[in-house]
């Protein structure tokens, strides 16, 4: 038992503490409410400001781009320096060529690694590979350009489509690895078990059942990776190099849309600037189309799985 006197002191202290909290609460309440409301505006402003800048860019790009486009752009070769007119037909074709080469490099390795990580790898090894893939994703694209220069351009003694495609291809590897692993992993294990229960070896199950089931997702991953490298310029500067004419073989320098946009943008001719805008809008539509197509795949896949 406490002594009565000390309990009186205690309850007085308690009362004064209650009063203190209550009065501090009341004194600061207005200020706190003010901050609370002000921050709504500050944060909204951040979002609006960002959207404003990004819309400015998009609108400018679309207006400039579409007013600069014409048929020649898709059908003609570039005109010599200083002459008006011409187009980027060879650059558009070149970009598709480079993307085709990139797919040849990036898809087998990326897909193979993704399937291995999902179906066979032990967790530690898988974790290391995933980590390295993520790190690879963050290496500046121009470094891939240098790498391709050292291992492709120097031995071949020439800038070439091959080296450009190689640079873009290795950039695709980590992205494809990560997405295809995720999609292969999402294949329900009952499917695998059903196959194994029939006495089919695991690798046949993987090749015949698992990969085909994940194909839509894998394709999506490849598309997203393609969309990302389609606009890359830096790794092509000293691999594909650019070309004013149609290239005749894959061991020759090749034109590419982003390269051409860059060259024309920094040149001192108005007509080239116009074509740079046209090139930019074509490039961005290409990227958005590939991305949109990929989204469409994902949506269709989701509809299937939610329908089940």
């Amino acid at each position, binding site marked *: 038992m406490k002594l009565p006197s000390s309990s009186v002191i205690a309850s007085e202290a308690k009362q004064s*503490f*209650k009063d*203190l*909290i*209550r009065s*501090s*609460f*009341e*004194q*600061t*309440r*207005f200020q*706190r*409410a*003010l901050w*609370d*409301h002000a921050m*709504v505006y500050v944060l*909204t402003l951040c979002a609006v400001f960002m959207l404003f800048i990004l819309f400015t860019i998009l609108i400018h790009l679309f207006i400039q781009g579409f007013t600069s486009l014409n048929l020649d752009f898709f059908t003609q070769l570039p005109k010599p320096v200083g002459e008006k007119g011409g187009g980027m037909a060879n650059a558009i074709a070149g970009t598709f060529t480079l993307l085709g080469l990139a797919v040849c490099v990036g898809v087998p390795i990326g897909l193979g690694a993704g399937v291995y990580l999902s179906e066979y790898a032990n967790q530690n090894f898988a974790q290391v590979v995933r980590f390295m893939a993520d790190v690879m994703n963050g290496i500046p694209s121009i470094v891939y350009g240098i790498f391709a220069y050292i291992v492709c351009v120097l031995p071949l003694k020439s800038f070439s489509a091959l080296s450009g495609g190689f640079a873009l291809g290795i950039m695709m590897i980590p992205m494809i690895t990560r997405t295809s692993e995720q999609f292969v992993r999402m294949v329900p294990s009952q499917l695998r078990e059903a196959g194994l229960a029939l006495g089919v070896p695991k690798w046949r199950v993987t090749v015949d059942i698992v990969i085909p089931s994940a194909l839509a997702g894998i394709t999506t991953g490849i598309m997203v990776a393609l969309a990302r490298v389609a606009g890359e310029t830096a790794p092509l500067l000293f691999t594909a190099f650019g070309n004013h004419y149609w290239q005749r073989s894959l061991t020759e320098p090749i034109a590419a849309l982003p390269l051409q946009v860059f060259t024309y943008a920094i040149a001192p001719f108005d007509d080239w600037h116009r074509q740079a805008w046209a090139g930019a809008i074509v490039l961005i539509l290409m990227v958005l189309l590939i991305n949109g197509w990929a989204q469409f795949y994902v949506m269709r896949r989701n509809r299937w799985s939610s329908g089940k």
Partner: protein
Amino acid sequence: MVGDSSSVIVSDYFGVIVSEAKQSFKKEAHMDLKGSIKVKDLNFYYGTHQALKNISMTIEPHQIVAMIGPSGCGKSTLIRIFNRMNDLIPQTRVEGEVLIDGTDIYDKNTDVVSLRRRVGMVFQKSTPFPKSIYENIAYGLKIVGIKDRRILNEAVEKSLKRAALWEEVKDNLNKSAMSLSGGQQQRLCIARAIAIDPQIILMDEPCSALDPIATARIEELMGTLKDEYTIVVVTHNMQQAGRVSDKTAFLMHGQIIEFNKTTDFFTRPSSKVTEDYITGRFG
């Protein structure tokens, strides 16, 4: 003024803040704060789904009230009514009156921040903030502007002692609260709640993630806290309700089936459904 809906932006905010501040000032200073809760004809909806139906109950100060019932019966929803925590969930709607110490907390002039200061809450999952033990307890005082180190020290010590955690942590007040054990974390959350001197403490299944020893400590603690605070506790454990509470409410399908003194509730249930439930015939 509901502080948490996005409609804040459109409201005439300056006028609202001023009246809000004035209101809360007047109210808190003149309120006789004991911690009684009175619910009249309460209905609550999630969208179109009615989660609580015609709830009426009175909770007297300095009592422990337990709420039991099968999962999904609305017991958690009901205690989250008392500090308007359901405001955070979009598309919810409240009808009826909830009076705390005689004031309708769903009145449009209610300052939710002030309400929540007076009605503390402890959750199922212990939620230590990523700060030191000391800062966890002092946080509620610091935000109302109490910065005096001596007062804070004293309040931290008192709250931790009150929550029966002082002896275990007094040498490690600067250690991260995340490093405590589950039972300690839960007592820390109780200490944090009582540090700001609430009248009511809501506990939403506070022991469901704890081992029996830690549970026993929390139950013991509830017994000692009762002489200062009104405690409303949701539990899925009938024995716990029997052990700790003065009154027990049994909910099913969003309705109160029975609300009675705990001793009577378990020995002489007035409703057949209650009897079936407490004897374990369904659950």
